[in-house]
């Protein structure tokens, strides 16, 4: 019997793209900030991935932020990609971004334009082939959504 793709290592390289591994090794904006306005700790107790997100808001947009944590390459690089992409965005823009990330990860229809707006985040798409790891990729995004839905005003 044959299970899984035939080209295991190709799938692997697609998931652990060089952008992903780069973000994993050198996470962006991981230095904690002082006087943050809102912060949240999110984790997945089953695999132990955790991320700590801090936001500083000025006139309704993200002025500064930090994301730090522990866990697998996917959760941590996804957090770093997130950190790189929400600076200077307002609540609605961030919510749209989160929706688009989810759409991509869950293989739902996504317009060309929305896809382009993802930029480097698109590197996470390879995770799709590893369904059990999708929750690693979405950990930071789900945490960010909870945080801003609760705290940030539009």
């Amino acid at each position: 019997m044959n299970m899984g793709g035939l080209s295991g290592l190709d799938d692997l390289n697609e998931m652990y793209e060089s952008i992903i591994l780069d973000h994993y090794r050198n996470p962006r904006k991981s230095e904690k900030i002082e006087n943050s306005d809102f912060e949240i700790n999110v984790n997945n107790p089953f695999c132990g991935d955790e991320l700590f997100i801090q936001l500083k808001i000025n006139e309704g947009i993200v002025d500064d932020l930090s994301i730090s944590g522990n866990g697998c390459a996917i959760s941590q690089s996804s957090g770093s990609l997130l950190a790189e992409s929400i600076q200077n965005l307002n609540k609605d823009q961030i919510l749209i971004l989160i929706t688009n990330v989810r759409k991509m990860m869950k293989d739902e229809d996504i317009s060309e334009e929305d896809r382009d707006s993802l930029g480097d985040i698109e590197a996470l798409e390879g995770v799709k082939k590893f369904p059990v790891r999708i929750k690693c990729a979405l950990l930071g995004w789900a945490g960010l959504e909870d945080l801003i839905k609760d705290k940030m005003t539009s």
Partner: protein
Amino acid sequence: MINFDNIRKDFPILDSKVNGQNLIYFDNAATSQKPKKVIDSISDYYTNYNSNVHRGVHTLSMKATDAYEEGRNKVAKLINAPTDCIIWTRNTTESLNLIATSWAINNISEDNNIIITNAEHHSNLVTWQQVSKKTGCELRFLDITDGFNINELKNIFDVNTSLISITHMSNVLGYVIPIEQITELISGTNTKIIVDGAQSVPHMPVDVSDLDIDFLTFSAHKMMGPTGIGVLYGKKELLLDMQPFLFGGDMIIEVSYDDAKWNQLPYKFEAGTPNIADAIATGVAADYLSNIGMENIWNHELELSKYALNKFSSYDKFTVLGDNFSHLRGGVISFIHDKIHPHDIGTFLDQKGIAIRTGHHCAMPLIRSYDTSAAARISFYIYNSIEEIDSFFEALNEVEEYFS
């Protein structure tokens, strides 16, 4: 001499490819693979003599009853127990819950204490937490992080200890607990001992009469049998005294509108139509193990374990959980890397066809005590080989290169 090539041929799944690679199955502590004989016995029952047990005079029902009871006999023989002291449950977890509900709640009070170790599977931890909450008794922990030490047990054991419930072999650290030292300690006292045999019965000789233990719990699916069925062994005088676990058909001998009388052992604890097909298949699995010989299985796994532990000791960045060499360890090895997360290791190895477990191994507090929330684990069975371990370490080298 055992012929390992022939043994491998008994397991159809070991021939399969996973992600284009030959399967190397190193997740035996989670569940074992099944030989063809076991698989076939299930379809034979449903195809040729499917019928309910203990209820009919017709030929099929008698045949099914005989096969079902023969399964029990074979399991009894494997652990050297009287047949009527073998109770079918769903798994180790249910066996432990049965003891908690039918014995512990009625025999333990707030003045008593229960001793378990810090390395128990959640099934042997959460169950006693609940008993402690319901009865008010104290739950005491024996720390076996660095190995079992009888003197440390003596320090926390006293006249109020009602129960010691302990794994025979840790599913995380691989330690084998010298049960005979504990039974010697409690002999002549009122303390009862439960041995969680989920990881021992499948892999080593376990003789309940020799060990002189009160209860033994194990799951068929970890010993080449099917999922959905497990075993509770109990000493007869205890089982006779205990209240039923579930109520309904089969567990009664006489029923009126007001009351009922319980059936004899073991049926008192087996309410409702049992898992007939899987009981039959469990008997086939027990025979399969006996034919190879539990001693042979154990020695093979000890050899694999030593070989792998030795290999691990040449890696700086991989740490094996637990003491590597001064304690008796079976074929279960958990490890962490100082940077690479177990999930990344697991995913990478999977692409090489190597199945390992990653996560908390149903022992969250223990894993956390290592300052991590997840570990990777390899665990062996009789069909695994030194060559497979070599392939595993080659892949592990690639993991290090890939992620660093």
